[in-house]
């Protein structure tokens, strides 16, 4: 988008108007009246005519189109559009937990977030741990999830109804490393949450 906008405005520069007498006007009586006057600028020498304050100079049609706006759009429309885009951006939430050494569906791990989760990564800090990142396909019931390190899918994850709590476990034949829950190991998580 930036490249397109840059191209659209590449030949455009804004210049201030520079005149000899910027505030000087002449009062000219309006014909046929006795108490009505026109103010007529008397600028003296015009060094620089300046850039016109026009709609096209404030928001070009090309830029408006980048926001999906029509030719009748005004800068305020674009600003509202930008704010809306910013509001819709996911934000990142981080935290830590320390593993307890349990596994299986009777002892799942869980992390609660301040807003509904879109995606979460977990980074173990232990030297013997596998550096890995789970990709949770969140639903409200436990479903299998796949992750990178061990090439296994014997893990299950779900999110709460409000989307803020992610819970997960691995089946009994896998270890606490696979569940990101080795005893005493600090795990860092990073979650993309809704704006």
């Amino acid at each position, binding site marked *: 988008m930036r490249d397109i906008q840059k191209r659209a405005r590449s030949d455009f520069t804004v210049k201030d108007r520079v005149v000899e007498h910027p505030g000087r006007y002449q009062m000219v009586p309006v014909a046929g009246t006795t108490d009505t006057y026109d103010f007529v600028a008397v600028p003296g020498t015009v060094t620089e005519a300046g850039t016109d304050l026009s709609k096209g100079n404030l928001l070009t049609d090309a830029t408006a189109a980048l926001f999906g706006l029509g030719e009748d759009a005004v800068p305020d429309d674009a600003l509202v559009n930008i704010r809306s885009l910013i509001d819709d951006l996911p934000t990142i939430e981080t935290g*830590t937990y320390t593993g307890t050494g349990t596994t299986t569906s009777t*002892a799942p791990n869980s992390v609660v977030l*301040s807003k509904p989760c879109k995606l979460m990564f977990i980074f173990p800090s232990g030297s013997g741990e596998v550096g890995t990142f789970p990709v949770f396909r969140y639903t409200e019931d436990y479903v299998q999830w796949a992750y990178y390190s*061990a090439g296994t899918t014997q893990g299950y994850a779900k999110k709460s109804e409000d989307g803020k709590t992610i819970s997960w476990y691995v089946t009994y034949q896998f270890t606490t490393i696979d569940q990101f*829950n080795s005893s005493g190991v600090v795990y860092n998580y990073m979650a993309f949450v809704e704006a």
Partner: protein
Amino acid sequence: MRIIRIEPNQGESYPSPQTVLRNDVPSGYAQIDESVDLTQFYASGGFVALTLTDGVVTGYTADPAAWAAWQAANTPDDQEPTTEDRMAALEAAVLEIALGG
């Protein structure tokens, strides 16, 4: 701030406390007082009884017997799943994702 879910898991152990940057305590969770040392919490696999005072965890009682019983009942198989088993499970998951499952 450290927080922990108030209700234990089905197996009666608590999930790990979280350290979070925010200041609000989520519904269903309690703040853990800064004075509480969690060493025994982790040593007992989260098998503890929490002590809450005005909604704040001010202490806990570890249950090493419950932890030992859980460990005895959940000993991992000695036999690792085969590569074929893992590949089959992975393929099934990928297929499920591809089908929008």
